[in-house]
């Protein structure tokens, strides 16, 4: 899990530019699935056929990560940018970022700003060390996207780095694909695009697949850090069975199935109510005439920062729980 996660989180893949992640995942899973293809939006869809008696299940984890998109290059070579997904000015301030071609830069801001609390993205810029517009344009074009440059580190069971949201979910799906042996269900593993900008890849893939059940894997915030906002999720206490977030209310059948499978196998789990935020199941459950959907969440500190932190046991238990759900009959 550690090697896989370090590999996946180290890849460049902001919304709309998920190629590298898609290729890496395809390599990882191609020998373990019956069919694999990329759709028009760029979603990677891998199928493990069932024995015909079970249900059609869609599993989703998103490949894309948040990023900074260049909107203007000034005459002195500074890059102005806008956000791809939820980017807080304070999370990116003075971070190192990297573009697809490997060009790196530092994020800073107009220091005449009187109150730092008034910091907005349009008062910020990326400095790639270019001395002029001409020099900068040799390296970066308008529309290019930078992501955090933060290779994964670990200590004991804790992994931290950028893009755990949602490469951690992708890693869990990859390991689940390898772990699932006999399933009565027809399984569609979807590594989605453009989740961070509005659950777009999940919406179109759910339409194409037309599943009976939808389950997505994504990170969720924790409430276990000093003076954090109340949130009944702790790092290391097990994968979370989502009850609701702002994108969906999980279908009771799916939620209860998750709880039942966790309890009968003695897999630790937590129940999650996320007040703000959504994930792919938000799009899946509204596809066509509706799809009963749920979410297994991976507890993660500092979501959308360069140092998102997850716990190895939570990841492994998520694989166990998901495998158990998929290998059994789904009512």
């Amino acid at each position: 899990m550690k090697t896989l996660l370090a590999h996946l989180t180290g890849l460049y893949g902001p919304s709309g530019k998920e190629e590298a992640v898609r290729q890496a995942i395809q390599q990882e899973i191609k020998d373990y699935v019956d069919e694999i293809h990329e759709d028009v939006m760029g979603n990677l869809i891998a199928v493990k056929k069932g024995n015909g008696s079970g249900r059609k299940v869609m599993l989703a984890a998103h490949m894309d990560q948040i990023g900074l998109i260049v909107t203007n290059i000034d005459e002195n070579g500074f890059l102005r940018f806008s956000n791809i997904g939820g980017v807080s000015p304070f999370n990116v301030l003075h971070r190192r970022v990297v573009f697809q071609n490997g060009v790196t830069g530092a994020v800073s801001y107009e220091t005449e700003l009187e109150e730092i609390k008034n910091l907005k993205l349009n008062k910020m810029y990326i400095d790639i060390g270019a001395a002029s517009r001409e020099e900068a344009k040799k390296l970066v074009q308008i529309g290019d996207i930078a992501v955090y440059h933060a290779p994964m580190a670990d200590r004991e069971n804790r992994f931290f780095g950028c893009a755990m949201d949602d490469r951690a979910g992708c890693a869990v799906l990859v390991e689940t694909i390898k772990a699932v042996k006999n399933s009565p269900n027809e399984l569609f593993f979807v590594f989605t695009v453009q989740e961070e900008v509005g659950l777009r890849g999940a919406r179109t893939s759910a339409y194409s697949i037309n599943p009976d059940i939808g389950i997505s894997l994504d990170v969720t915030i924790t409430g276990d850090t000093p003076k954090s906002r109340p949130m009944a999720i702790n790092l290391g206490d097990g994968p979370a069975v989502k009850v609701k977030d702002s994108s969906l209310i999980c279908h009771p059948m799916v939620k209860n199935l998750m709880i039942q499978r966790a309890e009968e196998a003695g897999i630790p789990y937590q129940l999650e109510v996320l007040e703000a935020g959504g994930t792919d199941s938000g799009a899946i459950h509204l596809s066509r005439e509706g799809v009963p959907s749920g979410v297994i969440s991976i507890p993660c500190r500092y979501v959308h920062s360069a140092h998102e932190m997850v716990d190895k046991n939570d990841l492994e238990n998520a694989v166990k729980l998901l495998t158990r759900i998929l290998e059994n009959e789904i009512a």
Partner: protein
Amino acid sequence: MAELLKRLTEARGVTGNEDEVRGIILELAAQSGAEVSVDRMGNVIARRPGRTGGKKIMLAAHMDEVGFIISSISENGMLKFKPVGGIDQRILLSKRVRIGKDGIPGVIGVKAIHLQEPSERNTVIKQKQMYIDIGAHSREEAQKVVEAGDYASFDSSFTPFGDNKVKAKALDDRAGCAILLELLKETYDFDLIACFTVQEEIGLRGAEVAAWHVEPDMAVVVEGTTCADIPDVPEHMYTTRMGMGPAISFMDHSSIADPKLFQQMVETAENHSIPYQIKEAIAGGNDAGSIQKSRGGVRTIVVSVPCRYIHSSSSVMDLNDYYNTIALVKEFLKGCETR
């Protein structure tokens, strides 16, 4: 050509009430030889079957414009109203409007400067405080010509001025509608389906059902987009620059351009020496947001004509940008024949 823009921009078509615009488009699209129909939402679908058929390319431009809806009529005959679509309330005072089917003239009023407290003069007057005066003395009199639920639009003429510029209301997106009508005059290998959509300004609603119905292989959205190359705005927030050519979007709040189509559009401009610019912001959204997510997904690209003072009664557009947008999309479509 300017006649077409004049006719389209002076027609009234606030979101949900696009009848007048639809009428003009139906007439002109049919004249160009397209097969036209209107769907249940009110979108105009104009088809031009291809020489060889097969691929379906959808073009989209929205017919609706921002405006107002009458919410109630006060005892003294003044009309209270609500904005439809995104309108800056600071631009409303003293603007002329036309109301209802018959286009009753009115003016947006608020108490005169003499009656305002000093503190009021230093704050923005809220839209809620404004009303539309149609010259009626009483509710009864007003009700003879207007009722709650009637739409009102800016009353603003199409005026050429300056260096090849035009001023009009509703350039967003009648400019796009006019461009689609021009493009419909040609036949291509593939089936071309031009969709003139309703209700874009309040949530890309018409495009959603149009795309479902058309089920295209790809789509080109033609828009009027914001242009802030004006004093007091730092250069990195211009978004687009007037006269620098059609703006190609890599991304906005509603969609990310398909990377191959984006590349193809840029190359088309360069190969044919058509001026173009990259839209330097991700602000705003448009019909591509709905179309891209239709069914199993549709590859989309957005090309826009820069418009200063967009969503106001006096938007400004450079006719060169307009003609170059027609040229660019036309060449792009020709390029799609061989791909």
